[in-house]
């Protein structure tokens, strides 16, 4: 199904944006094998297989309705594939609930802002720490005796570090619902980071942002990947950013994988060009000229 060239034979280190942590030889952190997803008569994903390497910044692109978010939901556990398996850190997680996967180390942000609007920024981020807290309902009620207090202080310190990293100190105590769009996106990212995930899924982190906000966000994502060492999976429509910061890119169209590889390879792929320009040319051999024709 997926006949596109795969970059693996060329290795990673040769690509310019690939950083130190991505250069290590391909330890796969997440793998999808033959994932199919059907909603009644709608085939959202067809036989999608791919692997994400540890420390990689991996982007999923494709036209609208290509199944990008469905794929991310299969990773996070919100959807269970109709067929096929997904593996995280070598473990079969296909049947696992989203919250279980979150505690294994998969964090995510959502396409449409999903902050807890009535809570403060700090509380929003603290929710992300939930699964890291050892104290349960009963021991937590004996707050002073069971170390719940000490535990919380330690968490607060780490949360402050995340707040510093994303430069949202000034809105720490503000109610999340009152913030500007760009800031809310950042708080959502902070909340996902607070989980300390090994793999973080970003569903359109830059949608609806202006140029400046996009640049900031791109910087945070690169830092997240390089300094925090998190493996990042990103869905994004802004091709400029995707090609700039991704190590590898996978392209979906109508639920099928049509290409996977390094940004420049994917850009050069004729099928990808066709998918994006939507032109229907019978001459498969010379898509480049066709594109030129189209533009002219």
């Amino acid at each position, binding site marked *: 199904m997926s006949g596109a060239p795969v970059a693996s034979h060329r290795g990673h280190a040769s690509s310019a944006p690939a950083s130190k942590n991505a250069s290590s030889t391909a330890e796969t952190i997440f793998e999808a094998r033959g994932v199919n997803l059907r909603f009644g008569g709608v085939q959202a994903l067809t036989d999608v297989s791919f692997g994400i390497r540890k420390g990689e910044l991996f982007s999923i692109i494709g036209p609208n309705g290509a199944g990008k978010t469905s794929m991310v939901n299969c990773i996070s556990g*919100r959807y269970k594939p109709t067929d096929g398996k997904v593996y995280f850190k070598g473990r079969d997680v296909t049947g696992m609930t*989203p*919250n279980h996967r979150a505690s294994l180390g998969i964090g995510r942000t959502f396409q449409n802002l999903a902050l*807890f609007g009535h*809570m403060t920024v700090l509380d929003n981020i603290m*929710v992300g720490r*939930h699964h890291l807290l050892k104290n*349960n*309902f009963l021991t*937590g009620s004996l707050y002073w005796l069971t170390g719940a207090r000490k535990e919380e202080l330690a968490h607060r310190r780490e949360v402050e570090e995340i707040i510093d990293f994303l430069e949202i100190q000034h809105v720490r105590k503000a109610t999340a619902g009152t913030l500007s769009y760009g800031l809310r996106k950042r708080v959502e990212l902070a909340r996902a980071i607070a989980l300390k995930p090994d793999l973080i899924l970003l569903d359109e982190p830059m949608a609806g942002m202006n140029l400046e906000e996009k640049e900031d966000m791109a910087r945070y994502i690169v830092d997240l990947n390089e300094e925090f060492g998190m493996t990042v999976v990103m869905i994004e429509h802004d091709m400029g950013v995707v090609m700039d910061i991704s190590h590898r890119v996978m392209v979906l169209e109508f639920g099928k994988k049509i290409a996977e590889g390094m940004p420049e390879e994917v850009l050069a792929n004729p099928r990808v060009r066709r998918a994006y320009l939507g032109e229907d040319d019978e001459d498969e051999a010379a898509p480049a000229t066709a594109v030129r024709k189209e533009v002219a």
Partner: protein
Amino acid sequence: MTLFFQLLVNGLIVGALYGVVAMSFVLIYKASRIVNFAQGEFLLIGAWTCWWLLTSWQLPFWLGFPITLVFMLIFGVVLQVVVLRPMIGEPIISVIMVTIGLSIVFQAAMKWMFGVFAKPFPPIFAHATMDVFGLQVQTVYVVSLGISILIMAGFGWFFKYSRLGLAMRATAFDQQVAQSLGISVRQMFAMSWAISAMVSAVAGVTVGVVNGVSSALSFFGIKVFPAVILGGLDSVIGAVVGGLIVGVLENVAHYLDSQWLNWGNMYEIAPFYVLIAILMVKPYGLFGTKDIERV
């Protein structure tokens, strides 16, 4: 005039109890969007359990009461897991029918097990009434007021400062997001039912000690509706305020009725008149969240 103050104080104390039950009702609604028509039966079951421990097993109150609470905690979890968990994702009307069904089943079961007549608790306090600023008030009411305030403060602390409370608020707000943050929605649901059943039992035992235990206790569950809707279905503070208003209101109405109107039974009906009036002015209750739809 003494009668008026007497009723006012009674109203506040009973109102605090309404507030506590209303809070546990709101807790379930907030976490899982389930309108629990069996809330009154939680009081009933709690009161009967405690009564049974105290009379059949001759346990002292200080031992029987905590055992009752532990039992209700387990009861709440089991109820949620066995009956309500399979209903997740079903239409809300089906879930409501289930809680109405539960209420009928529990009522019948309690009558079957303990009979239809009101049974008095063995005396718990040395003096049944005590003197508060020259007013005669049932000792158990004074104690229950203390407990109510404690529970309310506990709720406030729990939701505002504890991580589990935060997780519960997150679940109430958006289950998908909560899950993506590693919160088990099932656990949160089970917990909300457990706490709700336990807190309701406190109120059940209190009222049972004053009036004796009978199926009339579950009428409390119906009285809670005006309190909850008055305060706004999803507001914990609203539930407390609503409870106090209803408690005072029924006593004031009773006073007016007995002094001048002589219409009879205003005690039971007045809160519902006010409920209708308030809903006409503020359809979301005093503290409820309005659903704002942005186009």
